[in-house]
């Protein structure tokens, strides 16, 4: 991998200088900086990363959801993957959400590409992006009345009859 123009440490120190205690947690798995921020400040943080003259996180790679059913009060996690094409560095911004009220502010005003990504995350995890212009299902069929990537739902099609669990090791 070619060299980045700024380091993870620089990224983190700029974020901490700007947001202080709002950077709840940070880690660097596989050399990529991850930071946790409060759910109500994701928009602020992402906007700062995008608009900052030094960081220039100008590309939103992906928005993802995660479900940790055991973590009470912060079952759902929303993950923003940002990429600075100028500085050749990537990072993740994460926020935990309670499953009863999984709401976070939309970032469609910052990145147009967030539109479909937020719809997809809503479709699979039920995370509500407040202020999204058209928050409805995008990939699953419209009749689907649950969020299939949440872990309480089985991955398999429940109507399949020809599979005998004895022959499939479950």
């Amino acid at each position, binding site marked *: 991998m070619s060299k980045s123009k700024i380091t993870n440490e620089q990224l983190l120190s700029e974020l901490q200088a700007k947001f202080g205690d709002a950077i709840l947690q940070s880690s660097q798995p596989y050399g990529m900086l991850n930071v946790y921020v409060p759910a109500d400040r994701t928009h602020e943080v992402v906007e700062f990363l995008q608009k900052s003259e030094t960081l220039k996180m100008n590309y939103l790679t992906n928005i993802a959801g995660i479900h940790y059913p055991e973590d009470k009060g912060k079952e759902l996690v929303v993950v923003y993957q940002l990429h600075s094409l100028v500085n050749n560095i990537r990072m993740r911004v994460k926020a935990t959400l309670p499953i009863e009220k999984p709401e976070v502010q939309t970032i469609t005003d910052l990145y147009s590409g967030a539109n479909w990504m937020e719809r997809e995350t809503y479709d699979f995890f039920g995370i509500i992006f407040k202020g999204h212009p058209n928050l409805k299902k995008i*990939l*699953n*069929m419209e009749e*689907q009345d649950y969020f299939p990537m949440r872990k309480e739902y*089985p991955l398999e*099609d429940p109507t*399949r009859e*020809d*599979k005998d669990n004895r022959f499939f090791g479950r």
Partner: protein
Amino acid sequence: MGKVNVTVETESGVPTYSYAGGGFKLTKLDKIIGAARANSLWPLPFATSCCGIAYMATMGPNYDLARFGMERMSFSPRQADLLIVAGTIAKKLVPVLRQVYEQMAEPKWVLSVGACASSGGFFDTYSVLQGIDRVIPVDVYVPGCPPRPEQILDGVMNIQKLAKSESLRRRYSEEYKHLLSKYNIENDINEQK
């Protein structure tokens, strides 16, 4: 062809027989229409994934589906006789598949190509239809993941057998009406009668 024997004297003096004239054939209307249908099926390829690639190979010059009177792929369901469903059908695609089937005129046949179209295959998951026979009636299933072009040809030949032997009354029969009603498909061929 009926034999019209004409005796011809040859130089050796031995009479030989030749065949000449229009001749005639006794057959049943069912059979002759069945033969015509079977040898001019217009397939509608509904190819969604890798089985579609195997199907494209079947259409190409090596395997040459055109030998079976299928020179022309009909991408309009209204002129198609044979719906070839090749590939995984996601649940979101079900209304489309049904609409395509309903738009086809009678008589129509359905060939389900590959494990996914026949049973969902290994996509045992919330988003994939577990076999197209849950939403439309299927005449012939072709196993395989994906099937070899030879297998698809075999499936097509089985459809031809069905078309050849099908009674002209079948599509008007109570049994056929019952079959379609199980799938909640309107059978207007009966209403016109």
